């Protein structure tokens, strides 16, 4: 990404226009992405807004070769990963905004960091969530195997091998798992 020259990225106005022209399906895709990444204490809507704020603030540049929806989804992913890294390395938060600007709240990044006590509670909640996810697929051993593999960080080909499924069947099962999780979140499950 670093070697992209200025001509290879969208101008801010182009990016704003592209987001302004998102279809319902584009918004639903982003909503479903945020639902998967909005682990406590973040809310999906907050995460989408945060990603959009960063995009239009210009702190992330959108290469012309990728779709703007994918770009915003990657921003959501990046925010979730950054938060976990901050916990591991306890980095200090540095504002990217001009301190002289009045009312910077409108574009101030959301605070997702947990203190140690909150993290203990969060870890407990997360373990409960993992159990709830497995219960969603009660009686479906392959789906549970996929969930357990994904939770342990097992990736693509390796995960498929563990399930013993061919690529097409694996993709189909993975979609079933993803849809069911998204729908459960839509109906009140929180990660």
């Amino acid at each position: 990404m670093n070697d992209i020259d200025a001509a290879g990225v969208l101008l801010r106005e182009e990016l704003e226009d592209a987001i302004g022209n998102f279809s319902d399906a584009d918004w639903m895709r982003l909503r479903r992405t945020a639902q998967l990444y909005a682990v406590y204490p973040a809310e999906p809507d907050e995460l989408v807004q945060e990603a959009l704020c960063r995009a239009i603030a210009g702190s992330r540049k959108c290469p012309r070769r990728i779709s703007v929806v994918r770009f915003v989804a990657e921003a959501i992913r990046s925010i979730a990963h950054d938060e976990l890294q901050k916990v591991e390395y306890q980095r200090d938060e540095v504002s990217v905004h001009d301190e002289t600007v009045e009312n910077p709240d409108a574009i101030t990044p959301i605070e997702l960091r947990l203190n140690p006590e909150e993290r203990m509670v969060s870890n407990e909640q997360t373990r409960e969530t993992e159990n709830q996810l497995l219960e969603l697929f009660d009686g479906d051993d392959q789906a549970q195997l996929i969930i357990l593999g994904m939770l342990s960080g097992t990736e693509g080909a390796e995960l498929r091998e563990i399930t013993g499924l061919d690529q097409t069947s694996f993709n189909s099962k993975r979609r079933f798992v993803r849809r069911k999780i998204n729908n459960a979140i839509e109906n009140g499950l929180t990660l």
Partner: protein
Amino acid sequence: MTDRRHDERKKLVSLADELLDDLFATSDEDILKEVVEAGGDPAVIGAQMRERFEKTLMLSRKERMKAARAGRMAVEDNVEGTNVVDISKAREVLRLAFQKDGLSMAARNETESDLTDEEVLRKYNDLIHLGVIDTEKEDEL
């Protein structure tokens, strides 16, 4: 000993990473169907998300305008030669200025100690522009 920094949420983020590609391999039509299946209305939800984005965009534009205005004012201040102002001196000058006749009731009712440094500097500059504070006399303080 338990690592207090251990974050169980990492596992959920790994799960999301593995499912993200599927979201982009799913057709628009199927994504919309999923939301309907879950009891949502894509048109309504989409309109809400679009509206929130429009508000965010408007706020972002206002912030950029304010930043540009602050930048212009800083340049103008430099041109006028007001480079560095000692804040304690500015407070003292402002305190004396508030005691002068001819200021509005609102201005006279203010106490410089209630003001932040930023407010002090803003009022200090305003009163210079209005001629209430004479920067040459102020140097004698």
